[in-house]
């Protein structure tokens, strides 16, 4: 049956049909739905791992045991998993092992826009790049065969526009594959120098064979049209190129992006008058073509940054773009904001009020950096808040320790905050680490994690107790606060900053968007009491605005958290009708 599927959903369908049995991933936009969709198939064991490195090693273990396995992650997650990636390229696999990495050109929901193709090249692992849902489905199925045929993990590279676009897929049925018996093979699987030295030439030979494979494989195809212009492209750029040129150019569409073919490209180049390379982010195909001695147009006209589109490609390659009408008006922006009732808001207000230097991390709470709270001064990568506060405080001593805090969410803490915390406990800086425990992985759309007590299917699971964990590491000061209680937050933050030893504050309240969270009645403004002082406006709550000279509360948004009430000196914010 033909159906519309998200690229990620189609990829999951491909995994299912290919007989994949074990999936371990860490959520990250735009990759999350692959694993969420895979978890809907009972035939696949699925889990959220604490981070991408763990996920990839779980998938590797399952492959070693003889089951087809998968792990999924966003581009920056592959940095975390780079360690196992580079070496399982040497060991190869037993049963097929497929890795999905989803890039985010345009940074819709990311801290950088790195090009993951470099990881494939550097680790010498083949990489497939689908251009729509149909290909995501088909490539996922083929990837396992490729993995087993060439004894290598295979990466499928998605991007936001393939992962989060729906297009038509005609799904088939699951192929049950036999377990490939595990056999002890120390020379292949124990990567100590003596063995790894013998595996490296195997990797180089595999790459040579894969280049041969790339010359004729079904992942790469030529679509001849007008020969005045030839375009080599891949992924979503292919779709934009087709949109602009249709039959007006000849196209070499690459689906196997590492390693790249040589003869196929040279033969194609020989058939066209002029050659252009259209690829988002870095000039990977372009540099390969230049290395082959070809003269090409590419990053000389097309940008290294951001997403491409049909108009951008048309304009840069000299085609016409449609006309449009403009409104002569300054539009206020609409940046994302913390939701009404978000438990992070109260804590950030207190940190801002105490003029703390806040070193932040990756999650919804990164929004603590935006106006009017402006309460975060650093965000780098997963876990960096906890590690860097230690460096910050070691560098500044007391001047740092008495006003600096690290803030990190529960899931991010499990991902890579724990190791930084171990460093604070071990090398002793008087750092104050605040774990924002909203009992869920929020930003990526509510995934369970090791602290929530539930697994990916919502069934009861192991639950790591954060207080016990911190105490076991040697933290004598572990406080738990409710971020809706501003007075308590203020008192505890001041105490822990003043303490002459390392401390952890757990700011605990579930995400206001969780279905099980019961909301209180919305507040309303008693207009006779409101003097228009705007104290409540300092919270940056989307439910509160000024209507004329008085505050007003949008009762469709307000969840009755009463944080604003605690800022009002005139008792003007009260539950229920005015």
């Amino acid at each position, binding site marked *: 049956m033909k159906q519309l599927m998200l690229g990620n959903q189609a990829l999951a369908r491909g995994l299912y049909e290919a007989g994949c049995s074990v999936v371990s991933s860490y959520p990250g936009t735009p990759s999350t739905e692959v694993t969420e969709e895979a978890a809907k198939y009972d035939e696949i064991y699925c889990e959220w791992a604490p981070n991408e490195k763990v996920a990839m090693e779980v998938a590797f273990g399952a492959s070693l045991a003889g089951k087809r396995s998968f792990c999924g992650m966003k581009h920056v997650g592959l940095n975390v998993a780079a360690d196992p990636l580079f070496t399982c390229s040497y060991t190869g696999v037993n049963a097929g092992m497929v890795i999905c990495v989803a890039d985010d050109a345009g940074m819709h929901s990311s801290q950088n826009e790195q090009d993951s193709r470099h990881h494939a090249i550097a680790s010498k692992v083949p990489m497939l790049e689908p251009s729509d849902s149909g290909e995501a489905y088909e490539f996922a199925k083929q990837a396992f065969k490729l993995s087993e045929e060439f004894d290598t993990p295979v990466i499928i590279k998605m991007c936001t526009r393939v992962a989060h*676009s729906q297009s038509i897929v005609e799904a088939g049925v699951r192929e049950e594959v036999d377990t490939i018996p595990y056999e002890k093979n120390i020379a292949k699987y124990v990567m100590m120098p003596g063995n790894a030295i013998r595996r490296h030439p195997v990797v180089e030979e595999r790459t040579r064979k894969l280049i041969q494979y790339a010359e004729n494989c079904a992942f790469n195809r030529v679509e001849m049209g007008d020969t005045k212009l030839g375009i080599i492209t891949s992924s979503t750029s292919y779709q934009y190129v087709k949109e602009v040129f249709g039959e007006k150019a000849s196209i070499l569409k690459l689906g196997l992006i590492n390693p790249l073919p040589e003869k196929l490209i040279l033969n194609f180049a020989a058939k066209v008058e002029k050659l252009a390379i259209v690829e988002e982010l870095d000039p990977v195909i372009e540099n390969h073509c230049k290395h082959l001695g070809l003269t090409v147009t590419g990053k000389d006209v097309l940008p290294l940054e951001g997403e491409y589109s049909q108009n951008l490609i048309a304009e840069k390659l000299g085609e016409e773009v449609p006309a449009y009408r403009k409104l002569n008006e300054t539009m*206020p922006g609409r940046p994302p904001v913390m939701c009404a009732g978000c438990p992070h808001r109260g804590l950030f207000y207190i940190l801002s009020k105490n003029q703390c230097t806040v070193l932040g991390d990756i999650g919804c709470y990164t929004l603590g950096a935006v106006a009017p709270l402006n309460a975060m001064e650093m965000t780098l990568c997963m876990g960096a808040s906890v590690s860097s506060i230690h460096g910050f405080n070691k560098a500044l001593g007391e001047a740092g320790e008495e006003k600096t805090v690290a803030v990190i969410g529960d899931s991010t803490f499990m991902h890579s905050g724990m190791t930084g915390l171990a460093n604070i406990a071990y090398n002793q800086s008087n750092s104050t680490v605040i774990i924002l425990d909203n009992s869920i992985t929020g*930003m990526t759309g509510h995934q369970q994690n090791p602290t929530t007590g539930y697994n990916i299917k919502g069934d009861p699971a192991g639950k790591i107790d954060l207080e016990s964990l911190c105490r076991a590491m040697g933290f004598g000061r572990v406080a738990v606060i409710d971020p809706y209680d501003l007075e308590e937050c203020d008192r505890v933050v001041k105490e822990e900053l003043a303490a002459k030893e390392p401390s952890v504050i757990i700011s605990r309240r579930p995400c206001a968007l969780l279905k099980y969270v019961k909301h209180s009645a919305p507040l309303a403004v008693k207009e006779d009491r409101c003097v228009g002082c705007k104290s409540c406006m300092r919270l940056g709550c989307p439910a509160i605005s000024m209507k004329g000279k008085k505050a007003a509360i949008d009762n469709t948004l307000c969840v009755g958290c009463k944080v604003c009430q605690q800022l009002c000196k005139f008792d003007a914010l009260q539950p229920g009708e005015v």
Partner: protein
Amino acid sequence: MTKNIMIVGVGGQGSLLASKLLGHLLLSEGYDVKVSEVHGMSQRGGSVVTYVRFGEKVYSPIIDKGEADFIVSFEKLEAARYVEYLKEGGRIVTNTQEIDPMPVITGAAVYPDNLIEKMQGIGIAVDAMDCLSLAEEAGSAKAVNIVLMGRLSKYFDIPVEKWQQAIEECVPAKFAALNHQAFLLGRGDA
């Protein structure tokens, strides 16, 4: 010829249901369809855009400036923000609801006035209606998306029954009657 519908609004307003409904409908009409969404950070109350494209063969999953046949907007400012994406002769179908963005809430910016008149002033066809009131009349403020779909349906040569069928496929059975009513109110047939 590929047709382009852009759905714009504020994160959390329910635009994903609208695009799902259109996807179902257009697929059942035999078209090639692509729908592009953005997930993640921008869903947190930010400006969100969904692209729906259909025709004999659709390549790009996104809609670029000057290409949209329709911009369906859940919020007035968002309709105006994406005016440049409208094709010559295209039409904006918008909810008249105003939702203040954070820069307006904090006083750093003002919500522009008379946006509909200003859009009409540059020659754009704007079909504006108070979808929130109609949704509440149907029984739930959350049905704004279906009210808008009802309005949009007026411009398509697809029988009402087909739209209603797509609604049934996309919403839980217990809300089907409410959404049918919302659709008809939006269409002006109730």
